[in-house]
């Protein structure tokens, strides 16, 4: 008996530990890594009861980590009976309306109908659907149509009573309600969408939510992730996780950030919940999240240089001339929220897209970090579409980090360039290369439910900046593969305050691995989307991707 449960060897082992970038073998005991090194040295540790796991040429890496995700929100938002009208498969506005019409035809009277995916940038012929139009589509059913970016939704008249909305309904702080000519609410933005979403999620019940959450956590695991985050967790939603942990193992770890509101203090006591106590933490609340501004695709991000005046911005998005957007909060409210959180010792992560919002948030961060040096760090900026180079320098000097939403470029790059901001601006859109070169420990994310978890897509964009349609946008922002890999492993772990536990393959850390069918260090940067994800290991336990033949994993994890 040596106490070593497993030794992994027989393939490239990319550790992400700068002290030992490559290893020939890894020894695991219980949930943790106990040693890395040459095959010869590690095999000496093995005993007769040690499993020898032959990687059979596969590459072993630290499991992918996404510092900014929403598995629970994705589970609550998507799935039956919600109908997906995204442009990826329903390319025109008219086809999306027809899909709504078909669903309405099959609806029971009074049944609440909810559609997600309306896309001003990608739906050909897009216009904002007037309430009268939605009423004509669905005279007998409450109808809600949410945008693909999740920041806005449109309702018909039946939805007013179904969701308890009337002409006097006030938008919560950080949100907006737009009224039709008749004075009744019709379009909801930002936190105002929660007036309907929370009710809808409750209507659908906890049983469905539980099944959907399991399904979404597996989507992350199948994509090679071993850790993501629930960034913007309503305190009311936490029981979804605690209930799951009580009787079903989670296939990834989740780091929670509570959604901050002005009318209540952050939860004082953070639940730290582990599979086996605190040794193998599967869910932990570690910070707070607030939304500084909105979505570039809605037009409510606060920018110095206005949006272009184009058919896309003026007609399809319904913006005014020379739109510069706005913040979700007043400067005072934002400062109050940040200071309150820092005073309580929380790490703060703020959704920011426009450069003017980022100026304000950095002011707040600077004041809070000076006043409360014990607040958990690093403070974070989320998405950072139009952060300026000087703001990156300032953030880095404050110890503030950026998490970039790179898949914006993949799906919407051409629309951003030609219809919204212009070629010169989008060269610097999501400028992760500038941040990396400034020395910042950045991370990349897919921000499900907006785009599906896909670490390889993040790498593809960091390495090539190539859109789905093939354009390269912002070639100067490309980085090397070693730098890109850090953003989905060790540096993402650091942003989650977890880099002492996960993010690299080194002794003492959790045995969280991803197995890849090709070695990213030597793979053609243009072909990262083809790298097979063969499975993950979480706390020493092998997880097999669903919907994949067992044969793909021959030899891996077998005793």
């Amino acid at each position: 008996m040596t106490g070593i449960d497993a030794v992994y060897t027989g393939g490239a082992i990319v550790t992400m530990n700068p002290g030992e970038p490559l290893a020939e073998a890894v020894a695991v005991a219980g949930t943790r890594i106990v040693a890395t090194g040459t095959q010869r040295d590690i095999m000496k540790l093995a005993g007769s009861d040690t499993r020898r796991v032959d990687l059979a040429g596969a590459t072993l890496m630290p499991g992918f980590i996404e510092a900014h995700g929403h598995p629970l929100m994705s589970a609550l938002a998507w799935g039956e009976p919600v109908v997906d009208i995204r442009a990826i498969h329903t390319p025109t506005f008219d086809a999306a309306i027809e899909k709504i019409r078909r669903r309405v035809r099959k609806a029971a009277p009074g049944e609440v109908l909810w559609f997600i995916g309306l896309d001003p940038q990608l739906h050909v012929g897009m216009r904002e659907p007037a309430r009268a139009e939605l009423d004509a589509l669905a005279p007998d059913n409450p109808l809600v149509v949410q945008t693909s970016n999740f920041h806005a939704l449109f309702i018909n008249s039946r939805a007013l009573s179904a969701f308890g909305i009337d002409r006097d309904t006030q938008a919560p702080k950080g949100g907006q309600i737009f009224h039709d000519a008749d004075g009744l609410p019709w379009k909801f933005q930002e936190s105002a969408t929660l007036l309907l979403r929370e009710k809808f999620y409750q209507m659908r019940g906890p049983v469905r939510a539980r099944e959907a959450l399991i399904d979404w956590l597996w989507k992350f695991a199948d994509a090679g992730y071993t850790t993501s985050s629930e960034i913007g967790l309503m305190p009311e939603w936490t029981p979804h996780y605690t209930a799951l942990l009580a009787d079903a193992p989670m296939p990834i770890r989740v780091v929670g950030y509570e959604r901050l509101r002005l009318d209540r203090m952050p939860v004082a006591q953070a639940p730290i919940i582990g599979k086996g106590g605190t040794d193998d933490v599967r869910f932990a609340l570690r910070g707070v999240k607030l939304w500084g501004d909105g979505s570039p695709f809605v037009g409510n991000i606060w920018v110095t240089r206005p949006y272009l005046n184009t058919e896309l911005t003026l007609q399809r998005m319904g913006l005014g001339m020379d739109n510069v957007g706005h913040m979700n909060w007043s400067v005072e409210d934002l400062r109050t929220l940040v200071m309150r959180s820092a005073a309580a010792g929380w790490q703060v992560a703020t959704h920011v897209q426009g450069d003017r919002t980022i100026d304000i948030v950095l002011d707040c961060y600077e004041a809070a970090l000076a006043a409360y040096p014990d607040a958990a760090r690093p403070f974070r900026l989320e998405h950072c579409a139009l952060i300026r180079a000087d703001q990156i320098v300032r953030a880095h000097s404050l110890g503030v980090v950026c998490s970039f939403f790179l898949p914006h470029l993949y799906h919407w790059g051409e629309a951003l360039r030609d219809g919204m901001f212009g070629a010169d601006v989008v060269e610097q859109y999501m400028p992760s290369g500038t941040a990396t070169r400034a020395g910042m420990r950045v991370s990349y994310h897919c921000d499900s439910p907006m785009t599906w978890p896909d670490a390889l897509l993040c790498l593809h964009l960091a390495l090539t900046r190539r859109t789905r349609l093939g354009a390269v946008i912002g070639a100067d922002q490309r980085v090397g593969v070693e730098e890109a890999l850090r953003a989905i492993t060790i540096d993402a772990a650091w942003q989650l305050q977890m880099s002492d536990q996960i993010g690299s393959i080194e002794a003492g850390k959790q045995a969280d691995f991803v197995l890849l069918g090709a070695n990213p260090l030597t793979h053609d940067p243009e072909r990262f989307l083809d790298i097979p994800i063969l499975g993950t290991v979480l706390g020493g336990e092998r997880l097999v991707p669903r919907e994949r033949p067992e044969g793909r994993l021959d030899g891996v994890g077998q005793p």
Partner: protein
Amino acid sequence: MDSTTRVDRIPVTIISGFLGAGKTTLLRRLLIDPQGVRYGVLVNDFGALNIDADLVVDLQPDRIALSNGCICCSLREDMAAAAISLVRSSPAPDHVLIESSGVSNPMAIAETFFSGPAAQFFQVDSIWCLVDAENFLQLDYAATELAIEQAAVADLVLLNRCDLAEEATLADITRTLLGALPAMRVSRTRFAEIPRELLAPDFDRAAPWLDRVRSAPSPVHPVPSSPTRLDQPTTPRAEAALRVSSRAWHTRSPLDRASFEAAVTGLPASVYRAKGILYFVDEPGRCGVFHLVGKRRTLAFKPSPGPATDSRLVSISIGEAALPHDTQAIDLVFSR
């Protein structure tokens, strides 16, 4: 355009459609009356085809051979292997028909033939989707969406059992289908009857010189001087609700490539097939072999067999009134 040459491989037609739409009826009709074509057919359950025993010359557990030269096999998990086993029969079939499961997307089958071991033997000629006019509006939402997804990827949608539905119902279904995809090619039929020209076009009758398209380079036969256009409407079969007509073009002047590409890109949905050998100003010494079926078209070049630059094209259009104007753009290309 795809430059892959698809001249010598066996054409595959995938027959999809929701449960009960008429796939079995269509396949049975083709099998018992193949009109000279040796079909190889892959179906989920050949027992359901109910082939008359008099026609069967050989019966195996998963395979029957008919006296008219057709072969029918049960589908196995490995679609590619099942299709390749048809090639190994002697003689190999002229055309392979595959029944898609009623609850699956036919693209999954088509992809089997785009790459992998089956790709060298077969080319996907077309994907057809049958829609049940009598019952489509009664399907629940999920089934409706599946039926529409099947129709959306098809080259030809056959709105079947039209005799059992009111005109208002037929119009409603058509509107619903075109609402999902305005470019959908929807044709009405009953008893799954179709003009055979759609499946096995009698291009030879319409334009005998097109032999050369299919065969290897051969000496150019002199072609009689002909008018630029050869209109040859085919006689619709009495029992078929669906009608087709064919048209042909010929010119001795090399064609303008950009004009040709623009013309075929803009063809309306009524044009279902086209085939030709074409000479272009910008491709001296080479001739292009052009194929169009439904949504797909290819233009592959090979060395010219001789000094002549006679371009010829023939098309088949669907519809009660496949008027000459649906191919006017091609008239212009050939009359320059």
